[in-house]
Every structure is written in structure tokens, then in C-alpha cells.
């Protein structure tokens, strides 16, 4: 019998621990498919961050390092400098990357570090129970913004790729979403381009993936996808912000 669909080699057997309807699982799969398609599994080193995806080291069937909260881009830098021929990616949430680890992310980009960052934005700290993140929308209710995020008090959401776009070392920056099949397909293309950017040695690459957190948003999985589309996309517009010649 001809196999037409199977688990990517870059994913280990076993079940994800993610909540039902959480899009972390889709994003894992996209990254794994890209690793398979580019045939780089045996030279890839992944860096798991702190957050709901902390156990990513169990899920990706590649060499994996678990990093301290926010420090994944620095850890990735260490690996890449020792093993320039390896393919290094980090997988980070918005609390991890845009808050505690913003300096590490900015400077890895500024250095043009040849690593790929998968940045999963679900507008909250999922793992610790849905607190406000730097990406939380104005007006969005979280456990630490119970009256909704107030701009005068907590400021405005951080748009990471836009912010990094000013840095010369950033070679590929893109924002995608996974709220419907068309977008999932586009997301995969972006992830692939980010890895190709690294493989071609062009510089730092980052893909922000808009993701859901039905559990902490208090919505059903379907409602969460709709909420993402209606509320997050206006704040975090989709598209390629920066693409260096030679990537496509």
C-alpha cells in the first residue's frame, strides 16, 4: 500500500501534552515537515524554551537543548558558533521571547546570527495560567489584566518582526497564522524560507506564528480560531516583513 500521509521523521512518536485545540501542535508539525523536506534532521539542533512548549525537546526527533526562560537565542548562538554547519532553531513563546528574552532575541538578530526562531504568539503566558504578555491586546482580559489591558497602565503590544526589521542582521522576518488551512500552508512556506535563509548563510530569520490558547482565553477551539482572526490579525498583520535576496 502506498503511504500518502504520515508523521514527519522529525517528530518523535507519542502524544503532545497540549490542550485540545491549541495550535502549538500544528506549528510543531510544520517545523518538523520542513526539517524533513530540507533533509536536515541529522544536523539540526533545536532549542526548547520555557512555556507550554517547554517539552518540545521530547517532540522533535532531533538533538534538543532546553534553555532557560528567554535565553534560547543566546544558547542557539553558542551552538551555531561551535557548529557552523549545523541547523539551529529556537521555538519560543511570546512571554519567553518578547518579554524576559527580548534582549537575547534583538541581539541575535543584530548579529545576523544564522539561526531560525519560531516565535509563537498567543497573546498570553499560557503555561503559568494566562497572565498578560507583551503581546496581549489592549482591552484583552487576562489574569493579571483583569479589567482588560489598559494602554495607559501597561503600554501597547510589542510587534516583534516589525521591531527587528530595522536591524541589518535580520535577513528574513515574517508573520503567519494557523487559523485555517490556507494560512497553515502559508505558514509552512514561511518556516521553510526561514530555514533556507539559515542554510544559505544569509543571516537571522524569524517567523512569528499567531497561535491560540483556548484554555486561557476561555473559548472553545473553534471560537479561539475566530478570535485570533478577528482580533489578533488587525494588531499583528500577516505577511513577509523582510526577505533577503536569494531566499525564495
Amino acid at each position, binding site marked *: 500500500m502506498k503511504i500518502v500521509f504520515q508523521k514527519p521523521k522529525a517528530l518523535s512518536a507519542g502524544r503532545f501534552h497540549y490542550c485540545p485545540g491549541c495550535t502549538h501542535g500544528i506549528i510543531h508539525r510544520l517545523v518538523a515537515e520542513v526539517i524533513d523536506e530540507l533533509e536536515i534532521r541529522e544536523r539540526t539542533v533545536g532549542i526548547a524554551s520555557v512555556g507550554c512548549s517547554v517539552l518540545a525537546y521530547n517532540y522533535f526527533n532531533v538533538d534538543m*537543548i532546553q534553555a*532557560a526562560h528567554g535565553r534560547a537565542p543566546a*544558547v542557539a*548562538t*553558542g551552538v551555531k558558533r561551535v557548529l557552523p554547519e549545523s541547523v539551529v532553531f529556537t521555538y519560543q513563546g511570546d512571554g519567553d521571547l518578547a518579554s524576559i528574552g527580548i534582549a537575547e532575541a534583538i541581539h541575535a538578530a543584530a548579529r545576523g546570527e544564522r539561526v531560525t526562531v519560531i516565535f509563537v504568539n498567543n497573546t498570553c503566558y499560557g503555561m503559568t495560567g494566562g497572565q498578560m504578555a507583551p503581546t496581549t491586546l489592549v482591552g484583552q482580559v487576562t489574569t493579571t489584566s483583569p479589567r482588560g489591558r489598559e494602554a495607559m497602565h501597561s503600554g501597547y503590544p510589542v510587534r516583534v518582526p516589525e521591531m527587528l526589521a530595522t536591524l541589518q542582521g535580520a535577513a528574513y522576518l515574517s508573520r503567519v497564522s494557523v487559523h485555517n488551512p490556507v494560512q497553515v500552508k502559508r505558514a509552512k512556506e514561511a518556516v521553510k524560507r526561514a530555514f533556507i535563509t539559515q542554510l544559505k548563510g544569509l543571516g537571522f530569520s524569524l517567523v512569528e506564528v499567531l497561535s491560540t490558547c483556548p484554555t486561557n482565553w476561555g473559548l472553545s477551539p473553534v471560537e479561539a480560531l475566530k478570535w485570533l482572526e478577528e482580533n489578533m490579525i488587525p494588531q499583528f498583520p500577516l505577511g513577509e516583513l523582510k526577505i533577503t535576496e536569494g531566499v525564495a
Partner: protein
Amino acid sequence: MTRRLMKGNEAIGAAALAAGCRYFFGYPITPQTELPEYLARRLPEAGGVFLQAESEIAAINMVYGAAAAGARVMTSSSSPGISLKTEGISYLAAAELPCVIVNIMRGGPGLGGIQPAQSDYFQATKGGGHGDYRIIVLAPASVQEIIDLTRLAFELADLYRNPVMILGDGLLGQMMEAVEFNEEDDKGNRPIPKTWATTGCKGRKKNIINSLYLDPAELEQHNLHLQEKYREIVQKEQRAEEYLTRDAEIITVAFGTAARIVKEAVVSARARGIKVGLLRPITLWPFPENALKRSLQRARAILTVEMNAGQMVEDVKLAVEGKVPVYFYGRTGGILPDSRTVLKEIQRVGGYDYEDSLSKAESLVGG
């Protein structure tokens, strides 16, 4: 053997290079900056990488990545910078990643000053970061010893898969001394194969570097494993210099720069007929309690001298177990103890009369 004049900070760099270290990640801070500056010049020509990180936090996490990738790697800083590195040090210890961390101490707390001090003893030997972990701490007292201990640091790090700290102070970092230094000596000292490293899983199952154990039973197992390793280190790696301790009635205990000053005082005291010796810990962790215990057979008083308000003295007291009185003399703020004051302290804790001992010394000279 080549005899050279070398500055302490640069000697660390030269010895690290000779020991096969090819990666350095750091962030400038006085009084250790000559070390990164030296490696910025030398590492690229040796085929290695020097990278100035955006912060100490980033630097130690770059070390984490490089160590995970199987490299011999080093970082260095001074007191406030080491405070920032402690998060990473806890992770390195937990994930059992070998690396060398240099702390050329200055006075604290806070921003403190830039003069030499030993006030990070607690931070170095008792953790600093969170969790039940230990790192090996080596305390050189001369530029020659800086070279020897830097070599040793890389070997021990690999052997035990554990971070090793070289704990010096601003004076040691800045001073120049003649040393015997031959890179050829390190030829035999090559990293042992690191089959656990995350280098890409070609031809094997994937490797994971991790410090997370959500199941308490697993985390306890991991802790028990670490503690067993630490016990082995305590048994095998205690190091100390014993100077005139064999017949000593008074034992002084001091490390690093303080020990040099105390040695001077011990020499003058001996000239006055006072039976005093110096026990100089070379490993601060593991603390050389066996050597100290041995020296207690004769001694009736211990004097600990430090460039802080009294930190190592606690380990001395633990080792002495109340068998003899333990006294402390220290200076803080970046001020060095002076050997004449230490001599007076030796006489005071030994119950010697100052005038008496002077005339004894004179008669010794006269005789």
C-alpha cells in the same frame, strides 16, 4: 620551558588557549577586561571564536549552547557580572555541562568598587544560583598558579561534566609575574569524547540537554545522581598548600591574594620564634577539610584571614568542629590586609606577648 613575564588576566587566556579552549563569550567589566581583550586577539588566529555578548546573561547562555555542542568553552567576569551569570550557572550545573567560569573579584555589594576583594566566596562555593548544586572552585595565588589551575579547570570540567570556577581577585588579575609556560605541556590534554553532546543526531539516537524534571521522583533521582558526583569530587579533588604547618601551634588559613600576605606574616612570626603555619586552600569547593583536620593535631588556635567580612571562616569552623578556637581577621572594600597587622593578629590569637616575641626575634638574629 619558556620563562615569561605575564599579567594574571592574560595568563588565564594563554593557559585556556593551550588547554584547547576555542570559545569565549563575555561582557566587559573591570578588573578582568584584559582577559577578553587578550582572547579577542588570540582566539580567531587559533581558529576559535571570541564573541562579546550583549550581557553577562547572554554570555553564560552562549556558554551553555557551546558546551552542549561539545566545545571547551570559557567565560569570565567580575563580581556584579557573576551575579547575572548565576542563572546560567545553575542551569549548566543541572544539565551537567562542562565549562570554565572566571571570576576576578572586586569589592561589593552592589556596584561596590573596582579594587580586589574576596567577598564572593559564599556566592562561588555555596551556589549563588538556585537549587542544590555545586561547582568546583579553584583559587590561584600567583600568576604561575593561574596557568596551572586554568589547565586543571578544563580537565576537571570535562571529567565531571560540571562547571569549574577560577576565583581570583583584581590584584591577581592585574599583576605581572615571571612564569614557566610552555604550550607544549598541554598537547596530551585533549577533551574526552562527549557522546552526550547535541551536535546533530547523524548515525545515532537524538541527544537531549535538559534540566527539567516535572516528575518529583525523577527530579529527586537526578538530584541524588548529582549529589553522588559531588561526593566523589569532595573525596578526590581537595587541594591545599601546607606551609610550615607540621609543627605549627597556630594555623592561619587564607586563599589567593590574602594567602600571599599571610605567608609574609608567617615568615616574620617564625623569625620571632612563633610556631605558625599557613594552610592555603587551592580548592575552595571542595574545601580541603582533610588537610585542615590533619593540621589540628598540633594546633591550638586557627586564624582565618580574608579580604571580606568573614565567609570562608564558616567552612574553617565546620572543619575544625570546635576542637580549637577559630579567629578571623579581614578587610573589605578593596583594601588589602597588611602583613604587620596579620602578624599582630597571629601573636594575639596565640597569646604571645608582642614585646616578648620581638626580643626573642632579636636574640635569634643576635644568636
